[in-house]
């Protein structure tokens, strides 16, 4: 699921934090959140993985998702993650419980 995040500076600290939560190691290739530089415009797109090896579970069980904890525009990212949770995670949860 892709989002616009106007003030994202593309630092990718959220990715590094996410990878640590998912794998116990730091590796911004192994992450459920991806910051993508726009090719035809200025700025970045935030992509949250719904499937694949590393998918976002909204940091279930944590007080605050790791990506938000390390974001300098945490309020904006929080809003985005909440949208993702509402729109997609319920479905993901159902699929997971069926497995």
């Amino acid at each position, binding site marked *: 699921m892709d989002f616009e995040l106007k003030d*994202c*500076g593309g630092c990718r600290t959220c990715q590094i934090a996410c990878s*640590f939560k998912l*794998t116990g*190691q*730091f*590796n911004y290739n192994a992450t459920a959140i991806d910051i993508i530089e726009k090719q035809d415009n*200025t700025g970045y797109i935030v992509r949250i993985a719904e499937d694949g090896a590393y998918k976002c579970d909204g940091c279930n069980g944590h007080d605050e998702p790791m990506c938000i904890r390390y974001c*300098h525009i945490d309020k904006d990212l929080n809003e985005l993650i909440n949208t993702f949770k509402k729109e997609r995670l319920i479905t993901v949860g159902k699929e997971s419980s069926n497995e």
Partner: protein
Amino acid sequence: MNEKTSYAYMGKALRINLSTGDIKTFDNSAYFDDWLGGSGLAAKILYDELKDWHTPYDPMNKMIFSSGALMGTVAPGACKISLSTLGPVTGGWATGSSDSHIGLELKHAGYDDVIVEGRSYSPCYLLITDDKVEIRDAKHLWGLTTSKTLEALREELNDNKLHVLSIGPAGENLSRNACLIQDKNRAIGRCGSGAVMGSKNLKAVVCKGSKPVNIAQPERFIKKVLECRDRINSRETTKTLGEYGTPSAWHHKQNICGIPYKNFQECRIPDEEAKNLNPMDIIDKYQVTRQGFPGCVICCGRQVHVTDGPYKGLNTFMSQWEVVGAIIGKLGVKTGEFMLAANDLCNDLGLDVDVAGGAIGWAMECYDRGILTKEDTGGIEIKWGDEQVILKLIEMMSYRKGFGNLLAEGSARAAEILGRGSDYYAIHVKKQDLYELMRSSNGWCLGTAVSTRGGGHTTGTPNCEQSGLEMDNEMSLKILGVPGDIAVDPAAYEGKAKIVYYHEILHRACNCLGICIFNTIHMDMNYMNLDDIAELLSAATGKEFTTDKLEEIAMRQLNMEKAINLRFTDLARKDDYPPKREMNEAIPKGSRKGWKIDRDKYDGMLDEYYDMHGWDKSNGYPTRKTYEKYGLSYVADDMEKIGKLGAE
């Protein structure tokens, strides 16, 4: 995971010989405990492997790129890649660092360091993809600007997320102040490292990695990271820097007479002109989005789009503070947007914008005084603030065309070549051009003057006098060992040697570990200090580090840097002074009108500084006892042979 897990460091370095095509890896762990890797490792390797007859452009000179132990983690500001070499500006120790994504990619590829030596027969670039390392043909890239190089490599390698470190025409043409540019706008500047890269026919370095970074004690590490992040986030400084970056220093620098105007003749921009030059107004007007780098709590960069005026249509990155000093103030420019245009052009040509204004400012003053005429300049009238002429000269310096060939040498060498008494107007330390105005803040002045890389404020210069922030007395005493009111007083001479000493350790630790100094007490006393960095490193590596240990390691490195300079240059105490104008002239206007550096007091400050380091006060040379204290007795033997061992 490998059979042997390396914590924080990857435990492996690359050695690439461009003359022979040999590519080898080696275990670099011997350089961790005593050197912290990074620029410490580089100092040790450069000293040990270079021969006395090697020069910066000799194929046997080495460029040593390093990621850093904390790079790749969420440690605050862990985004700096460093590069060290023998540089063509001072002829000695050259080092620089840059915010980067490519440093992260290098580390994920599995390497802490890359040593590049030799000279390729024809233009080449390095492609490092995990275990696959290639020297590739770059004939088709030679001549391209840095942005075009990025574009071409992303297309050629079919990956629009690639990060590239490249040189532009300035590096290719051995312009002495050429830099390296990461992607489009972040530079490894000063020291002319881009020209060393050009001399090796190396156009670019491309890295892409997929290996994880492990840390030894995750819980302890994350606890410290979050504590530091929360502390940094709680500060008003972070809001200000987050909003405007280093240009937020504008008002304070004007107030304390900290901006060079017309080649340092004055120390602030006249109010009437300053109205149109506030860099924060430029950000408010043209900001499109922000630009940040891994781990950074602040995110000080900006992307801008100019929508009106003479530079309408320019899509670029906001310059940092230095362009206000180096170009706008120093050259007497009257259009604020010009800081974007000049910065953009320098980055694209791979000319260090920090120092581009050095030679141009010298030429403008010489022209103004009749020392240079149109006959010397090829018919160009070089008048203060002429924006088109400045852009033209930046291009001519980068391509070494016409009069630009002289300016490409930097102001100090240009003045040596020209003569006519023009050396007084070359504002440099150890031939490194400056934008750092030195005569208005004594600690800032001392740190910049004694820097082993020649000028610059990122290898030991304290910022506390320049920041305008109040200093908590107790905190200042505890961390710096100096009362707060003295630490922030730009006119005080006492205690400044001690503060420089602390910052020499802080900056070296940061440069070795990959930390941006903006996340440290360089910017705000509540940000990360050496205790914090030692705790992060301990948790990350599983080995215990303390501030005292970091001090020992940083001082070992500093003495090695000194030894490199003593072997390859004639630098000595005489070169640890501000430029003549800064030393001789009083501040002519502004809040500190009439203030002048007191020569005797400066000498006292320098004596105290040498004493603290165990260096001979008569010449600045380290003594045998000092070298031996850091396990460098073989260096002392070498220095004795060349007659450069300090007297006890």
